[in-house]
């Protein structure tokens, strides 16, 4: 297990998604669950994405949504669970932030991601065939930089780590099936 902090959370998040693209380009089964109460796009530093390969092109990407787009381009099933913008409007979160969330969801939906909402969602996690990144986060109003309290990353390898991984995968699958599909036409 790798402890996840503010410092390495994005590295792992981005890495997991890039490796899933690679797997898909190999013709292997590939998927991604993106679970977060709030999802908004952010620009990735080029150095994060600086990925050299002679079999896959990660070049034209500069934001998180672009990266999800690349997954979709490689035919990866992307399932998103988040809180609905309508639900968020009942909270104290800034309007601007909720608008941003709504725009991002609309983009993801357009790319063919399956989006579901869950009003009681607090956890944030990314799961792929390569591993699970999860943690509990404090909500801040600044969008992306959710305040990380305790985070962990389990690779899908063997032993305890594999068991933890499988456990979390099951949780994600269950969560997804219990959540409400979003009517795309209601997203801007």
């Amino acid at each position, binding site marked *: 297990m790798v402890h996840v902090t503010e410092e*390495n959370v994005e590295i792992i998040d981005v890495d997991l998604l890039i490796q899933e693209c690679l797997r898909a380009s*190999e013709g292997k089964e590939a998927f991604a669950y993106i679970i977060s109460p709030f999802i908004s796009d*952010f620009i990735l530093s080029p*150095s994060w994405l600086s990925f050299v390969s002679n079999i896959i092109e990660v070049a034209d990407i500069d934001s998180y949504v672009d990266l999800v787009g690349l997954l979709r381009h490689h035919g990866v099933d992307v399932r998103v669970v988040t809180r609905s913008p309508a639900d968020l409007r009942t909270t104290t979160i800034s309007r601007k932030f909720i608008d941003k969330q709504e725009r991002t969801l609309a983009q993801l939906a357009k790319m063919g991601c399956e989006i579901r909402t869950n009003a009681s969602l607090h956890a944030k996690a990314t799961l792929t065939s390569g591993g699970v990144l999860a943690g509990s986060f404090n909500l801040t109003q600044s969008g992306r930089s959710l305040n990380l309290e305790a985070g962990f*990353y389990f690779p899908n390898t063997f032993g305890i780590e594999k068991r933890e991984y499988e456990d979390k995968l099951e949780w994600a699958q269950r969560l997804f099936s219990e959540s409400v599909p979003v009517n795309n036409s209601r997203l801007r």
Partner: protein
Amino acid sequence: MNSDQLSEMQQFLNELKTKIRVDSNISIEKVGDLFESIRNLESAISEYRTAISQDVTPDLATVERLRRKLTLIGAIQSIQNPSYFDEFASTLAEHPYSLPKALFDPQGREMVTIDFPGSRSDQQFHKVRMDLALGMLYPGSFTYRYGQPIKVETGRFSQRFIANLRMHTLSPDPIFKMKRDGRIIDVYKPIRLRTMQVVDRNPFICRNCLSISGLDEGCSHAPRIKQPRKLPSSSAVTANQELERQTEGSVALRAPLSTVITSVSFLERFKVGQAVLGFERSAFRHVTIVDYDPPIGMILETKGVAFAINIPPGVLDHLSNIPILVRDVLAQLLAHKLIDSFSRNGMPSYYLEPILSGVISSLGMGQGSKDVTSVLNTFSSSSWVENAIQATLAEGANYYERFDVQERRLRSLFELLSQQSIELQTIKNEIKNRLLHSLAHNLLIAGCVTAGCLPSDLEYLISDNEIVLFDSVDGGNGSSAMIFDFISSRDSFSLTDVEEPTKERTFRPKYFDEAFAELMLPCQQGVSERIFHRQLPVPTHQEISRRITALERQRQAYSDAYKQISQIGVENCFIASLGFHLPLELGMDVQAAERFKESASVCLHGCPDCLVLGNRCEEGGFMEKFSLSKAALDEYFRYMTKSYVLDYRAEDSVIDSTLNTQGVAILSMQLTRPAEEGSTDKLDARIAEFRGRRLGERFIKFAGFWVDSPITSNDVRYSALLVLV
């Protein structure tokens, strides 16, 4: 059209300008063109506005043309590959067709006078920018620039393939001196270039020397070998010579690239002499190279980026112990030596391959060849000359439609060659030249990707341990500056929120080091070919399997040729595809020989997917394949990065310690068969374990993945790059 519509149009143009400015996919050159067109439209709008205010009937034809231009601009914007631009634009542009090379034309640019002595119109002289003249109006070229086709004069060159430029007015003194193959040559500035009108658009062209009858060229070859053809295509053969520089700032790259390039500096001022040494002409699927006497050129004050290249002696020792590489580089060297003495013997360049092929077979350099030492011994004994003559003549008679090279010419050519001294050290130096030249191409391609420019916007200059890329126009065009700015080691790892949805943002430019690093990886086509011909385990990655499927299809069509390749081995394909010595030995008929040659042109030393630049290569498109070596470059990169490479099963502590000391680790996995053919599962798992782990102050990141299959070994391997960030 009323004034509201005009305002709407102006509004549209304003939006267009903003878009053009922020879209990094549009090259600087295109930006210049688009702005030029927009300026025209804007002035048209204001004129139209004046016109309607004066209640004058609008010129509908002009409006229609403007409308079409506007649509065109829209169309150009949506074109992914903007190289169609020239074709598009020329249908609407006015004479003379000239695309500005840079957005800002620097003042005081030098001009050349183009002289039309026979011109019936009033204008006998046209002033043309020097760079344009040297790029498009060099002696021997044809142009439709002025409506009627014209030729820039060369006089007769058929005897020795040297064009004496006395009919033109050149500067009285040389403007700079250039070092070339150990000699110093003077380069003169053209002042007035004489042209002649070409009336016959399908003139008779000599199949032997490619001279055109009825113009100023002509030749004394038999009339029966002259055939009418459309005007041949040509390109200038150029070379650059550094004159002065002023450096401003330098940066280091990250590992693993830092092993190849030790530093990158920006050249705020770079003065370079650009010479046009001659031209290449092609017709009848042949190429001839004609040299100028004297060479002409200009001095460019521009900006550049200098890359300090690290080629330690150890890597050259290593490379010169690889027999296949040494043999192929020797063949390339022989090609250069032969072509250098071609003009002295009045031999057209396109005979290079059969002649080289004769030398190859007489020296026993073909497949199952002798070792290099004995090849070199044979070479220095000159006992090979007679055999080479016979081999060349036999090849010529069997496989070339017309091959009228006299025996005595061949003998004098080969005797001249045999007097040259070629030793192991010569080949070692030559390997270094191959490396530098191949690196220069990679840098140029990476530069174009980063700056979003065309290969014609940049030039390269190779010296002993350095390669300079520089803007190809006087005053610079911003490409080098952009390359220097987009070296990612200058950036920190950071995140920024996206305020607006993706569509409104500009594209991320590709970082220079990233683009360059990818070009340093093995060529996908070459790897696929080796896997295919050697029947190695096939990686399941889409891009590789797509190429393997394509090869499989070709094998179905050319089964004999492919059988032949598997017999000689894919690593011998470069040498086997030079001329027809192998088909001759095996008694193939012409069709089988052609098919073999086509199938054997695999990527060993470069292909259009990796290094090949065609006419943009300073050696010219014809000699390019004798100037590059992807195989050497790959082996060089493997050697330079070998201290980072670990077996993927290595202990965690070993991987950690490599990462700690070097900042980089490359986990390597060899594909086994048959059980897990092509699978990366185990390597994937290893990457998953290291992902995001803390090492000291930094974290491990997965930063690269590639497939390799070296020419020197019969295996396929995956490499995963881990870096500390």
